[in-house]
């Protein structure tokens, strides 16, 4: 081991991804000398604000394809309608096993594309769905604008700050490789092919979660496009409530285009798996609660029973019993900790010192998409009755077993709320149970799966978003947060997405009583500033902006000054006048018209 164990507590100042927008009253000198033809151009695409509901087309369902295609005028990335060459490939290229059919699909290249697409959708009354790798797909997206974020490839490692800035299209394996070059490591998921952003917004239970906490606890800053089409930085200092909700609220509050995540000085760990014959399931599962109860935070483990393929990875009887083990500390200590489970005689033992880049081998998750029913619950404890139920449903003697069950040992650092706090739920849970099975005959839960969930529910303390599974019932989704946090999320939703533009996935409904009369709650500056931003795209003169916004020229100058100071617009300061070259171009341009 090359690194000290224990939670990393480096807390540098939060680094915003984009400069915050605040109205300051004008620091840029000489604004009052800008003549009315001074050209102002928006530096980032800032789309129009939310259209009031009454003026919308009903559901946007009657929109002609021609109108949907106009989205291509607003974005740099590709745009497809169903049936277009490339549409099916873009949808199918993800990990998702769910057949999405949005009205229009956008391959967003940058936050400006995301902002433009969100505005485009909102203006037409269409919902917005987001997909990077498709690992989070719950149910088919059958309407609206779908954003494919795979092209958003930002990845920067700051070795001094020990952070990585990660775009929405980046997967964990890329961050692992980039961080490893600096002797650093991210709190990645068990499957490195999973996208960073979606995983982290749902909390994120990494193979080292008991040591360091949820991955979302180590987000330093986020860049998010909210339903009003604005690209916003969110961190402890900027939009702190939004920052609270993004970390754990999954995709409910906006499209996160990038995250800054903390990295840890870890280059290796002790990890791997013990694979047992199906006949050992009883012994391993009965030993697991007592064994894990004595583990320190340096050790994170899980155990799974898998009937997938109906044959045992270890060569024996189904199910495969797979104990996953990760320890941040010296190999000798790890061996001592693991000894009681090794005494149960695994058929295959891969636990050893691993370079961090090999962390994906600990869980050895399947890398192919599987169209399966999934369901997860959190447990406050793992009493004998629960172990019996699991063995009865998925053990070697089960006549009609569910395909797979995983029990993760939680707690440790995950139980502690971070500073600043976030919306991640499940901190009081000590174990998580995750069930995978074939869909039921009606496309819903399979009967045996439903019975298993019913048997476990009395012991359940809730769920965690990333492991909710194939769930759409909002009452079940609500169990992913504490009652207080869920209400707080709904109030936040009412403020930043009152019309529920982001309604796919694990939707949190907006709290009806908290719907604001206007969206003045967000840090956008006065509505006049927003109007100017709209008008200054791609560029306009002060005079035109004043006429278009019906603002006095003097007011426009002050607001433009603030927008320029915030980096939102660029002012093309006129010089002493046109140069000869420009005059000649102008003369040619005029003569062409005559």
């Amino acid at each position: 081991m090359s690194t000290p164990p224990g939670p990393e507590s480096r807390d540098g100042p939060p680094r915003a991804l984009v400069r915050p927008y605040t109205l300051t009253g004008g620091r840029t000198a000489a604004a009052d000398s800008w003549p009315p033809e001074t050209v102002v151009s928006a530096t980032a695409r800032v789309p129009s604000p939310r259209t009031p509901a009454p003026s919308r087309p009903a559901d946007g369902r009657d929109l002609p394809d021609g109108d949907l295609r106009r989205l291509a005028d607003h974005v740099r990335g590709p745009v497809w309608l169903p049936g277009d060459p490339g549409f099916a490939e873009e949808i199918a290229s993800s990990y998702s096993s769910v057949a999405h059919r949005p009205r229009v699909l956008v391959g967003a290249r940058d936050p400006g594309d995301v902002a433009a697409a969100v505005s485009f959708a909102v203006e037409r009354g269409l919902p917005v769905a987001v997909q990077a790798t498709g690992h989070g797909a719950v149910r088919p997206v059958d309407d609206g604008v779908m954003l494919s974020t795979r092209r958003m490839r930002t990845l920067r490692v700051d070795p001094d700050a020990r952070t990585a800035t990660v775009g929405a299209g980046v997967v964990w394996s890329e961050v692992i490789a980039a961080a490893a070059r600096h002797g650093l490591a991210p709190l990645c998921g068990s499957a490195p092919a999973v996208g960073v952003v979606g995983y982290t917004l749902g909390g994120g239970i990494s193979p080292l979660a008991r040591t360091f906490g949820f991955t979302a606890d180590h987000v330093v800053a986020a860049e998010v496009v909210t339903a009003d089409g604005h690209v916003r930085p969110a961190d402890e200092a900027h939009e702190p409530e939004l920052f609270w909700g993004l970390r754990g609220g999954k995709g409910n509050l906006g499209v996160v285009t990038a995250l800054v995540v903390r990295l840890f000085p870890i280059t290796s760990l002790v990890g791997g798996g013990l694979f047992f014959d199906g006949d050992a399931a009883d012994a391993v599962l009965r030993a697991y609660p007592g064994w894990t109860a004595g583990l320190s935070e340096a050790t994170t483990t899980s155990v799974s029973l898998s009937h997938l393929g109906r044959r045992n990875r270890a060569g024996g009887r189904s199910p495969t019993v797979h104990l996953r083990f990760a320890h941040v500390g010296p190999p000798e200590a790890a061996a001592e900790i693991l000894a009681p489970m090794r005494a149960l005689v695994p058929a295959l033992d891969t636990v050893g010192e691993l370079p961090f880049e090999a962390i994906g081998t600990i869980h050895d998750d399947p890398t192919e998409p599987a169209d399966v029913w999934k369901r997860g619950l959190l447990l406050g404890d793992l009493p004998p009755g629960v172990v019996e139920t699991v063995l009865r449903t998925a053990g070697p003697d089960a006549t009609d077993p569910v395909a797979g069950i995983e029990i993760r040992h939680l707690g440790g650092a995950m139980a502690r709320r971070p500073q600043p706090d976030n919306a991640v739920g499940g901190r009081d849970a000590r174990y998580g149970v995750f069930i995978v099975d074939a869909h039921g005959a009606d496309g819903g839960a399979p009967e045996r799966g439903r019975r298993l969930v019913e048997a476990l529910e009395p012991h359940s303390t809730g769920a965690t978003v990333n492991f909710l599974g194939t769930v759409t019932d909002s009452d079940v989704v609500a169990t992913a947060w504490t009652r207080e946090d869920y209400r707080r999320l709904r109030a936040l939703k009412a403020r930043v997405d009152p019309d529920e533009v982001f309604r796919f996935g694990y939707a949190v409904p907006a709290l009806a009583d908290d719907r604001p009369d206007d969206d003045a709650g967000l840090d956008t500056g006065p509505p006049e500033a927003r109007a100017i931003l709209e008008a200054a795209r791609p560029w306009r003169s002060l005079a035109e902006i004043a006429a278009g916004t019906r603002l006095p020229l003097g007011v426009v100058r002050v607001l433009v000054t603030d927008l320029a100071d915030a980096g939102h617009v660029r002012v093309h300061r006129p010089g002493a006048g046109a140069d000869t070259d420009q005059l000649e171009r102008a003369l040619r341009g005029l003569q062409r018209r005559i």
Partner: protein
Amino acid sequence: MDSSAGSETAPGPTVTALKVVVAGAFGVGKTTFVGSASDITPLRTEEVMTAASVGVDDLSATPDKRSTTVAMDFGRLDLDPGDTDTAGALPLYLFGTPGQYRFWFMWDELVRGAVGAVVLVDTRRLLDSFPVLDYLDRTDLPIVVAINGFDGEFPHGVDAVREALALPTTTPVVTCDARDRASATGTLASLVGHALTVRGGATGREPQRVASYRRDPQTTTGGAAR
């Protein structure tokens, strides 16, 4: 890897906006001229004349004009759209000056950085043009005097107008129909060409017109030397 943050987006090339001031006496057709030449619907602020303002603004020679411009009206010509959103874009803004004398405080701002001024004149009331010409004479602005032929008629020749206004030979005097797009555009081309000529001439300023006549608007004939 691309940049993720919007504010880091390359700002693109600078847009150079050119400006031409469309000047002239009240009711001479400035708003019409801007509207004819502009690519965009001219943006303007007009108010219907009231009895009180009739007392201030002399409508006796233009009885058909019912409204007057009390703020800037302006238009835009996109002379070169450029390759992308901003690359190489060359907009030309036309600012019509407020016609009434009481709004002249706005002129100083308007003429700053302008390519030049088109001074529209109405031969029925040449006298009214003197204050405008007088003002512009105190600036370095290249000007073209355009005789707006109402109803397409030009009862007085260009030379007669030049003489009546005491304009130097170097100041172009053209005829135009402010309602006609090609005619208005041609007038602008004359101005830009003149601005290039003035700039090209190393001597800079052309000879001053005789100021004394314009400071005495009662004198309508002749433009004697100083």
